[in-house]
């Protein structure tokens, strides 16, 4: 069993802190044709995702909003990896990330996740799973063209 301090280091890895401080693609995508808002009512975190989808491919994606380090880093990392992916590929990544943050790194092929692997520490912090998954839920809602804001509750 790891100590509390090691868990913290796993959660707040350099890459996570770096992305939370300087999130990538923190913008509204110009000419976006898909968008959705996400909300975590427990902590008040809110974010919006805008996307330009061309046929089956996500050509551009951005996010904006307020949230903790985990939710910002997760959103930032997400925008980096789903760009130029097909809908099916983005959906598959969502599933993997969800498994990673809920069940831990043993449950998925971490190598295949690339940069997203830095989110593996979240699984030790059940109260923070929703922070990590909010952006992904919102991305999926945008892809599906749902009008209603998604909620983690």
């Amino acid at each position, binding site marked *: 069993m790891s100590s509390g301090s090691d868990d913290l280091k796993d*959660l*707040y890895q350099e890459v996570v*802190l770096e992305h939370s401080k300087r999130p990538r693609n923190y913008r509204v995508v110009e000419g976006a044709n898909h968008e959705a808002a996400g909300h975590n009512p*427990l*902590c*008040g975190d809110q974010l919006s995702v805008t996307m330009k989808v061309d046929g089956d491919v996500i050509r551009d994606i951005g996010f904006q909003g307020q*949230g903790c380090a*985990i939710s910002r880093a997760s959103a930032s990392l997400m925008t980096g990896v789903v760009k130029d992916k097909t809908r099916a590929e983005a959906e598959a990544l969502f599933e993997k990330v969800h498994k990673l943050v809920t069940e831990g790194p043993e449950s998925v092929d971490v190598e295949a996740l690339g940069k997203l692997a830095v989110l593996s520490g979240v699984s030790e912090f059940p109260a923070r799973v929703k922070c990590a998954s909010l952006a992904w839920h919102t991305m999926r809602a945008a892809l599906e063209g749902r009008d209603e804001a998604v909620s983690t509750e």
Partner: protein
Amino acid sequence: MSTFDVQRVRQDFPLLHQEVRGRPLVYLDSAATAQKPQAVIDAIVRFYQHDNANVHRGVHVLSERATEAYEGARETVRGFLNARDAREIVFVRGTTEAINLVAQTYGRKHVGPGDEILITQMEHHANIVPWKMLCEQTGATLRVIPVDDRGELVLDAVDALLTEKTRILAVTHVSNALGTVNPVKELTRRAHAKGIPVLVDGAQSVTHFPVDVQDLGCDFYALSGHKLFGPTGIGVLYGRLERLEPMPPYQGGGDMILSVTMEKITYNRVPHRFEAGTPNLEGAVGLAAAIRYLQALGLDAIAEHDRALMAYATQALESVPGLRLVGTAREKAGVLSFTLEDIHPHDVGTILDREGICIRTGHHCAQPVMQHFKLPATARASLALYNMREDVDALVRGLHKVREVFR
């Protein structure tokens, strides 16, 4: 008892003596719910081991004992709040239900289209939503007393907001998000000068200082047992007899009636009219035990301990670089809300948790006041009679650790 010995008090709270995450527990979340002294736990166990039966109906000895315990608890609460009459004490599930009860009985009877209900910007959702619902049901309008940047009510705005249309003023005694102690006696005086009744949300006040409802003069006072070191699921609505008596019932059922035929129902007298169904007996018994425990320690001694610790904690937190207290009212009780640089409160809470320190993070069910301060969330440490300076010191060390992680 003249001296307050926090180390001795801590011995009365078994939950505090444990390690979490490999460290001694530091519990600074009593504004969410307070821990229970052994006396409360014992009272509940004793009730189930010896006295349990339904109340107000059986002819047998156990029902007599249970009724005595339940009605005895009502008398204990009466004494605690210095109400004139035990009939003014209604047992409910908690502060939330107490406010809903007033909104749906007194409110439905007296509020109509074009009327106004006055609350404040710093209310807990429990003292906003029931009134908003009442407005939607009746066509009344919700008006709001503003808050200044210290987190105090803007008293200059009050008189203009108390109009001939105002049907009730509902205000919290102590803000759960900011710690502000509101001048509810003065507000009651001003409202009463215009014939407007006043409900006070006492969820966060009774734990920190003695409350005398006759001195305050308010019409209704609501509190929760679980924040007062008693069990969950029990709370109190105090209502002045002349207000309660004409009020229609809240829920229908057994115990709240005198007689029922298919043609006609005669409702019971207060307070039973508002207590439909078998009440929360163990809750009332536990709450009474909590009150007796506090009275034995001395309400003034507790208030003095809480005041001194609050002053110590305020100074200690102000020494942490980058920490900003949210809510700096001249009179505060129990609650220290803060932000730390631009670190999100959730991250603060997670790191403190790994140090064994329990605080609350989020909007504290008081989103309108968070919006006033333009914050989605704060971190909140809250103090109770079993907290000591060492708890505050641990918090400060934890906050330095948070800053290290985010450096």
